[in-house]
């Protein structure tokens, strides 16, 4: 005799309790602090800030701790928190031209004002696991020199002087906010860039890679990659002028792409652009390549049918919070719909058997 089982509430409570235990892990092992994550897992923190669209390293570190290191879960926490934050206003556009560059490289010129500055990069490390790190994380002192005084103008500005690179339209209009207005297609470049900067790094990387392998190849050169701190300024109406409200680290990547001859203009280099919170260069470069691929229509190029050119495909599938939500929702009960499928297939099979036996009789 069947008695209807109840207990969903208790099951959830117990699941949460066990989760908390697993999150803490072996209690004889010291607990991670927010500061440790922020300092020693900085690149994870950067990714969470970038895809969470919220610049707060401590909060991102906390989210990573709560999410047990699952970065997409951490990004989710940040996004949900962000929704609840009140908005005081908008900042002025940041001036990356004035960036204090920790890292600044260009593939298009051997040298340029401001120099080629490697910064704290993994690029030339040999990927050999350093077993010494397991025991001893001591760092030898890094030699320090006097800070650089020369300005670091954008490499693109030199190309611009010769009119070799297309000019970007300048305007004072505030672009639509992707998190406040529903996405409608065709999307403006501003909305596309917003979507790319907070899109899943793996997805954007894959899309960028596909362009390099021939799916709408755009011959990208990294004109400049710069990483460093920029000031964030906001106009205060009561004061009548703008004040600096803080400083953030961003990664900016500008690519120069070969122009493949179109009906509209004489040859000029074209641009791809990437801008991401924190030191997040893989993402910034990927973003620049995909940005350029998505610009085929406004540049009068052909639609080659490549995935990276398909605005709808990219914008609808790059958000990993939407993606994982929908993917994982298939774990939820679907037995009512499955039941209706069962009934239908049984019925169709009955009818098919009837037809077969009728035909056999004839």
């Amino acid at each position: 005799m069947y008695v209807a089982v109840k207990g969903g509430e208790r099951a959830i409570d117990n699941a949460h309790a066990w989760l908390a235990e697993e999150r803490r892990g072996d209690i004889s092992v010291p607990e991670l602090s927010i500061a440790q994550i922020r300092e020693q897992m900085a690149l994870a923190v950067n990714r969470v800030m970038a895809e969470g669209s919220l610049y707060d390293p401590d909060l991102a570190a906390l989210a990573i701790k709560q999410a047990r290191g699952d970065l997409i879960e951490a990004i989710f926490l940040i996004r949900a928190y962000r929704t609840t934050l009140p908005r005081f206003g908008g900042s002025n556009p940041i001036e990356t031209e004035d960036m204090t560059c920790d890292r600044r490289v260009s593939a298009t010129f051997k040298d340029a004002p401001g120099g080629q500055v490697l910064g704290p990069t993994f690029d030339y490390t040999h990927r050999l696991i350093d077993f010494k790190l397991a025991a001893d994380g001591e760092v030898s002192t890094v030699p320090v020199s006097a800070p650089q005084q020369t300005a670091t103008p954008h490499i693109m500005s030199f190309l611009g002087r010769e009119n070799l690179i297309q000019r970007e339209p300048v305007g004072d209009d505030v672009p639509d906010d992707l998190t406040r207005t529903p996405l409608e297609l065709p999307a403006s470049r501003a909305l596309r860039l917003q979507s790319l900067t907070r899109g899943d790094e793996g997805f954007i990387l894959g899309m960028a890679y596909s362009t390099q392998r021939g799916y709408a190849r755009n011959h990208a050169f990294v004109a400049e990659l710069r990483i460093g701190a920029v000031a964030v300024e906001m106009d205060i109406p009561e004061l009548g002028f703008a004040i600096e409200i803080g400083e953030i680290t961003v990664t900016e990547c500008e690519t120069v792409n070969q122009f493949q001859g179109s009906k509209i203009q004489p040859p000029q280099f074209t641009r791809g652009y990437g801008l991401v919170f924190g030191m997040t260069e893989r993402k910034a470069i990927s973003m620049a390549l995909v940005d350029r691929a998505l610009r085929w229509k406004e540049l009068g190029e052909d639609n080659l049918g490549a995935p990276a050119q398909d605005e709808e495909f990219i914008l609808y599938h790059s958000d990993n919070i939407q993606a994982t939500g929908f993917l994982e929702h298939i774990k939820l009960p679907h037995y009512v719909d499955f039941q209706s499928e069962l009934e239908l297939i049984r019925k169709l099979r009955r009818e098919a058997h009837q037809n077969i036996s009728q035909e056999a009789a004839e």
Partner: protein
Amino acid sequence: MSDYNFAYLDEQTKRMIRRAILKGLAIPGYQVPFASREMPMPYGWGTGGVQVSAAVLTPDDTFKVIDQGADDTTNAVSIRRFFQKTAGVAVTEATSQASVIQTRHRIPEEDLRADQILVYQVPIPEPLRFLEPSEVETRKMHALEEYGLMHVKLYEDISQHGDIATAYAYPVKVEGRYVMDPSPIPKFDNPKLEMAGIQLFGAGREQRIYAIPPYTQVVSLDFDDYPFQPTKADHACDLCGAQDSYLDELLVDDEGGRMFMCSDTDYCATRRKQGHVGAQGVPYAEDAA
């Protein structure tokens, strides 16, 4: 959660959602784009329904949440708790006592009244999506009332399977104008879409809200010679004996033994309280916790 506004969303956001709801009610079946917010539960787990509920709930409401027809499934529990925490509204499992009901995949068996609101969770709002992947194109098709492709699909089903092969999320035409996806309810529930209550549909991830006002004409698509049939399993509920409610099939032993019971747990419990007993049921008593 006292740092949060009533029902979690800030008033500006609720205003934006209410405007979308009003537009949806004014154009029955039309998908209104809205700026879906990131919620504390994942996209695909009911954020659309939650945002709609959050926008319509008032402190005086009584709230019911069901998933697969049951109040006690884990996601229904989770959503009900969310609103208990953030809105402090009274909650109930009794359909007749609820003023707002949020549902996933079922319409309650009991007829709803004019003072009740049914909020549906919708995964994919676009009925044409599986025939035409492009959103730009489907919006055009709706605007121009180009629904031939929808019937082509039904034609293909009949030519291949001998019958229309859609069992749930069965498309309907609303007030003779818009073709709509009623969310993944079994087709058995389609006739109930014509009701006295207000029906609101929220798709968070896809950023769409749509609505059916009370007493609106809702017709399930079919052919004249293959008319729509709201079918269910040919059984009665083994607990309460109901002949006319949608049934869950449960596997009870490893020899394929099965039993059928009402998917709508409140409907079943109410009938058993009234003394109805099914083939495998016992007279009503508080169920094992």
